[in-house]
């Protein structure tokens, strides 16, 4: 008798308990293109693939976190580097999806293309349940990326001037080697030392490989890192000039920009000087 009654109570309590959580789950949705992410499926995937680094609670404190020199993303604070949205805002679902798909070069986050698109969308939704920010705030409005203007030598030169004027070199160095005067002091939001991107090493950008991705990096900033947003400081056409110039700093990465730049007398000298110095990994040294 007694036990049956308490079982009934248990059921009631369980049902009540289930209500708010399902209401919470309904609040967080994720859509990537036509895909609709499912929280439960995402949860299973998370606890198969992700928790080792990102932790059981998603706070970036997985059992492996102490051994990583670039800390795993903390999904509870929900600050994301690679966004299409302005600094300080939440990324779009596509941004998170793309980050999972792409992985982060030079960190321990691999590319997850082995998961299906649906599975990655499921993970996006689950990640959004790990922070209350996703229920309180909306994702930012993606910054508009106007069509890329034609590549010209003048554009590259204007970009070079901007690089000096905006003082990108303070961190990234005059030749983009990540060795500017402030470089050694930089820390990320976890107070971990962080190095500015070394263009000369030619590794792929963390937030995507295209010129559009590069455009977004300095128009949105990499939140959680010292890289600020220049969205309120430069005009779109200036941003494109800067993109074209930055490509020429990647002296070990073949691009149309580098080819055009090397075709000029000024550019050829600069690139040649940069190449002889080599890169930290020693790749692409051509004497």
């Amino acid at each position, binding site marked *: 008798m007694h*036990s049956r009654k*308490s*079982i009934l*109570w*248990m059921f*009631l*309590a*369980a049902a*009540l*308990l289930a*209500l*708010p959580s399902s209401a919470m789950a309904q609040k967080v949705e994720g859509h990537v293109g036509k895909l609709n992410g499912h929280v439960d499926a995402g949860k299973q995937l998370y606890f198969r693939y992700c928790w080792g680094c990102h932790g059981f609670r998603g706070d970036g404190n997985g059992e492996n976190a102490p051994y990583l020199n670039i800390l795993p993303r903390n999904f509870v*604070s929900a*600050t994301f580097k690679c966004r299409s949205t*302005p*600094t*300080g*805002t939440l990324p779009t679902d596509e941004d998170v999806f793309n980050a999972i798909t792409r992985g982060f070069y030079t960190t321990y986050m691999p590319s997850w293309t082995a998961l299906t698109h649906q599975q990655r969308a499921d993970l996006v939704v689950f990640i959004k349940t790990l922070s209350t920010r996703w229920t309180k*705030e909306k994702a930012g409005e993606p910054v508009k990326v106007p069509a890329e203007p034609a590549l010209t030598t003048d554009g590259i030169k204007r970009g070079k001037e901007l690089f000096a*004027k*905006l*003082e990108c070199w*303070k*961190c990234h160095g005059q030749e983009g080697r990540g060795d500017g*005067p*402030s470089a050694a*002091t*930089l*820390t990320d*939001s976890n107070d971990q030392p962080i190095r500015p991107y070394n263009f000369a090493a030619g590794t792929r950008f963390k937030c995507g490989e295209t010129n559009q991705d590069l455009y977004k990096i300095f128009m949105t*900033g*990499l*939140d*959680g*890192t*010292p*890289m*600020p*947003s*220049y*969205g*309120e*400081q430069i005009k779109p056409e200036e941003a494109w000039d800067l993109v074209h110039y930055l490509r020429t700093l990647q002296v070990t990465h073949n691009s149309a920009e580098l080819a055009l730049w090397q075709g000029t007398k000024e550019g050829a000298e600069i690139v040649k000087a940069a190449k002889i110095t080599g890169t930290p990994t020693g790749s692409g040294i051509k004497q």
Partner: protein
Amino acid sequence: MKGKALTVLLAATVVLFVAGREPARGRPSANDGPAPGTAVVKGIAKFEGSRPAPTHINMNADPSCAKLHPGGLVSEDVLASPEGGLQNVVVFVSEGLGDRTFDPPPQPVTMEQKGCVYAPHIVSLRANQELDIVNNDATTHNIHPAPSNNREWNKAQAPGTRVDATFAREEIAIPLKCNIHPWMRSYIAVFKHPFFAVTDKAGNFELKNLPPGDYTIEAWHEKLGKSIQKISVSAGGTKELEFVFKSTAGH
């Protein structure tokens, strides 16, 4: 029996959970009418013990900053007057206001970057009150707050331009830094009520217009930690307080 206790616990959790989700709405705003009260809490923050040796800031990384400080510059971490008054202590009501809510004032608070230093060193303002950040330097800065209860963002700021910002939630205090100039560090104290002050050069502070009641007054210093006092004020009354910060050993 055990089962029953567990169910009660579960049910209680549910009730709490649901109650906790109730949004705070429809409460009267104390800003609608005149000042919320007439009591005053004032006093002084003091520093005791051996003073830390002044830390000289090395600005060599950016000559444009260094040339504005021909005599060099020392850190603003601990600033105490010869009489022992401690500057840059944030004194505020941390408990006792109950459910009262206060709308932020429309006028913005300004912070200036000049000579690659933040002025004031401690910014205090209200949640959702506008903060105007001005760059009067010849160099680009970046404004990078590192909050724990607000959004983190990071904006570049070219010379002569302005960055406007607001912080939605109370937080004491948000570290603010410029990554380009690593010595630039300041704090932004964000309050959901108007009862806060930052001590002046002599270490004095004053909190005005408090409604009568029992309060916890907290004093916070970026390096020396915090101190708490519980007080009770009546309408029109004045309470004098003294907060003493001791030198942290080894400095």
